[in-house]
């Protein structure tokens, strides 16, 4: 399984304290993505030029700082250069399980996020199976757009799925793709997945118009109906925590100057949904 990071999550990516594994590689390229290093499946090097270092990078590199063609990554693997960070690691499922077992007594579950985890569906299903054999609660965070998405339905204990826009236009604006597959997948999930959470990122000028909000609300009502009349929803406001990583990847971050929606805006939308009978999760 290729991951780009792992860590801890306290009631944010599933119930309780969780160990979370972030898969590398994503089929979308969302304009707001907070983890741009997750998108490319290839192992990459990030360079944080703002970090102070007295070590001449050229001395730790045999590739004349041509990071894109480097596969030895000596700057990181040997020199641990402060500005450089290697993103991407291939871990056998057994190794991941071994690690999880050492912390089993302190976690409430394991979450698999990304990137898009369902792109590595075989590894994900194997990991879930192993975790369930150990009696460990599992969760997946998905953009719900892949063909493999439906393979985890009813298999994973807890499924968090994005609803990034209400209209096809809005979805294309954010991701560059149509939302037809997403809607199909989410409808299937609503029918088959018991513990199911819809996560809505609120992205200024992309999905915060009245049209988008109402379209999302309408679709959520449909999902709720399919899910036995109840559905959990979480909204997240745009943030710019990923900016430094865009810079480290030497990539443009298009939303750099976007002002995040206000807390009041978020609350108003949540109140609206609450009135519709949705269970709103706040973190």
């Amino acid at each position, binding site marked *: 399984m290729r991951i780009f990071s792992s860590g801890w999550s306290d009631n944010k990516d599933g119930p309780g304290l969780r160990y979370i594994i972030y898969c590398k590689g994503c089929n979308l390229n969302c304009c707001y993505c907070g983890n741009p290093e997750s998108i490319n499946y290839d192992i990459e090097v990030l360079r944080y030029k703002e970090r102070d270092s*007295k070590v001449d990078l050229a001395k730790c590199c045999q590739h004349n700082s041509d990071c894109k063609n480097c596969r030895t990554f000596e700057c990181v693997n040997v020199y*641990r*250069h*402060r500005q450089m960070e290697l993103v991407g690691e291939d871990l056998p499922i057994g190794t991941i399980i071994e690690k999880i077992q050492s912390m089993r007594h302190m976690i409430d579950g394991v979450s698999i996020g990304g990137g898009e985890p369902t792109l590595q569906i075989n590894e994900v299903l194997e990991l879930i199976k192993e975790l369930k054999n150990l009696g460990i609660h599992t969760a997946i965070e998905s953009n719900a757009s892949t063909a493999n998405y439906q393979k985890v339905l009813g298999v994973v204990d807890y499924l968090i799925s994005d609803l990034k826009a209400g209209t096809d236009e809005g979805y294309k604006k954010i991701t560059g793709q149509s939302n037809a597959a997403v809607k199909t997948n989410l409808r299937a999930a609503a029918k088959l997945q018991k513990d199911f959470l819809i996560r809505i990122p609120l992205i200024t000028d992309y999905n915060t118009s009245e049209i988008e909000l109402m379209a999302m609300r309408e679709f959520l009502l449909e999902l709720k109906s399919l899910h036995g009349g109840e559905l959990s929803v979480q909204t997240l406001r745009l943030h710019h925590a990923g900016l430094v990583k865009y810079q480290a990847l030497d990539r443009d971050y298009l939303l750099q100057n976007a002002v995040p929606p206000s807390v009041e805006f978020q609350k108003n939308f949540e109140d609206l949904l609450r009135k519709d009978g949705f269970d709103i999760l706040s973190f």
Partner: protein
Amino acid sequence: MNIYSEGVEILRKGKKEQVVVNNWFYVQEQKMEIIQNLTKDKNFIVNSPLGQARILKELAEVIKLELPAGSVFAGTQDVAFSPSYALINPAFKVESFGGYCDPCAIYDDVVIEGDITVERVEKVRKFYRDDEYASQLFTHYDNYEKAISEVVFFMEPVTGHTIPDVRPFLSNGVLAMQAKCSDSDFGKAMKTALDAVLILGERYCKLAITEAEKATDKNEKIRLTQMAERLERVPAQGAKNLAEAIQMFILLWEVMVLEQAPNPYAFSVGNMDRIFAPYMAGTTFEDAVAYFRHLLAFFIVGSRGWAISQNIMVGGSDEHGNDLSSDATYAVLEAFFISNDPQPALSAKIHKNTPDKFYQELGRFFATPGHSTPSLFNDDSMFEMLRKQGIAESDLAFYSIAGCQEPLIMGKSSLNTTNTWLNLGKILELTLNNGYSLISGKKLAPDFMELGYNSQADVWNNLEEAFWKMLDFFLPQMAAAGNGCTAILGNNKMVPMTSIMHDGLKFDRDMRDPENPGITYNGSGCLIHGLSVVADSFYAVQKALPIFGYEKISAALKADYQGFEEIQEFLQNQDKYGNNIDEVDVIAVRVAEKTAKKVAALKNNAGNNYCADFSTPSTHLLYGYWVGATPDGRNSRKMLGYGIDPRPESCSAPLQSRIISARKLPFYLMNGGYASHIGIPCQGNSLGNAGEWMRDRVIKPLFAITDNSEVPYYVYFNLDSTEYLRKILTNPKLYVPSGVYIMRIHGTFVNFLDLSSAIQEDIIQRLEASAI
């Protein structure tokens, strides 16, 4: 507010106004005069159990007694302690620490005022400086000057870090205990020492009657009259209720500290809740809390309540896992919560069946910024560790903490807990530099040839092996130095009073007898410093040698990295222990394991083993000051890691990863104890239900027994925002109008505002390096 609660507020106010702490000096002067008088009889032997007991008894006759306003109980520790007892005091300076070599340095603490003149002080100082004990000690320290001048190791004369068992006294009374003493010389000595308790009781009783007659305040009169009534029964007879039990406890304690004055070692209480639980009947919870607050106030010496490492425990289980908390547990906790003083220290025992109510009560401490927070001990793990040390099953539940975190069995252990101090950082430095000190340039240790290598390059290429050889060179010296201190103390300063509160009746010998101590469990302590620096250095050298070569790295160390910044950054950037990175954590495990085993193989005068104690009670600052630059990238004279913890700048992993890392260590080999701190870098009141949060997110993850692995048995916390602490320092009057903001530093509470800047910064840095 009842009259006892009212009284404790008056009493605490009086203590806070007690800026000058000179009482101990008057007592030492009186003791000098008693000795001078007694030794007119040429048959009187000062340095004998009977001699010491006689001096103690006569002291009890003459020391000045006071009953400060508000007192419910009679008794004080002021007769024994000076401010310099506490290492953690405002005068503390890393640069000027001189250890405890000079038993007469305490006379520098006397405040010259009133009837105390310089001449008077010097006369007393000279008397004690010229006695056998000090003379032998000075000579002994001189013999080890080479090693201790830059603290490769250090030693001190201690046996008093113990936990007396007061329970037989509380139930039987002093007269009945005297009747149990044999007719041997030592039996007579114990009996005579107990006379001191009876004398103090009688004198306090008379004083209480006199003061009650004079009292104009109605409540004060009641408090004093009740005190006198209690003193009619105790300490002579057994206690019938909680108030009598506490009164007896205080008098026993006063005589015990008087016996070892000035500046006695760290007597701790043990499970206060269990000691007093049998006497709770007939006392309301409110009164019990007030009584316990008076007892806590008894431990305070001076206006700021310097941390004198007297540790009180609550909670815990029996050897079968049954919870032993009771109403007394919650009354003691309530007393601590209300009083929130820097002394004494509170520790809580946790186990797999600890009730939620206990966590909820602890949560109040964690959730209140500036409040003391208990350190925690893990019974489930502690019992296993103690079993491996051969502690009897029936004794397990009575383990208690002496001082900061050293586990002993109440009334049955004398482990000389801080007998020796070992500086692994310095040993590493000497290994890497051919036996020469980077600080002074002096040759303090064997060179490469003496270690059995062909060149210094060989040493670097086999660094870990060479380090162990260097350690093997110093350990026997350290043990001899420690044993010398133990012998000098035991042969000169017998303690019949303290002995009878341990196993004195069982063995009929002094617990300090160096070669045949009258105690069930005996050993000697070794506090081991520098685990993380050594482990990180071993790892960094492995990585750096192929790139830079030893000569260049060695030159960098000698230059304290000036002009070698690239090498320093390379070394600093290597993986460090404490971040759940197996490759380097495993080295720390190995260093801890091998060091602990080597230390445990050393023998004291009685043929018992040394105990490996990975505690550094702020001495990680002091000992770091004497260690040059190290290959983990640390600069010369900077602090070592605290206890088993990584250095603050070496740790960037989240809390959970740090917990996993810590759990890899060989805790059951740390039979002398260890120090560890977890910083929660936010104020506890932002955690919601702090008790639950701490239980689920920190305590259980750290302490849970999961398999056959060795699990931590100790931890303490600081919960605060570093921004707020820095604000406090900029304007203490604005942010802390009360003048008291309690934090923890190693095993004790401290008033953050009273600390030296070095220790304030240590607390802040360790919090800044924390992550949740």
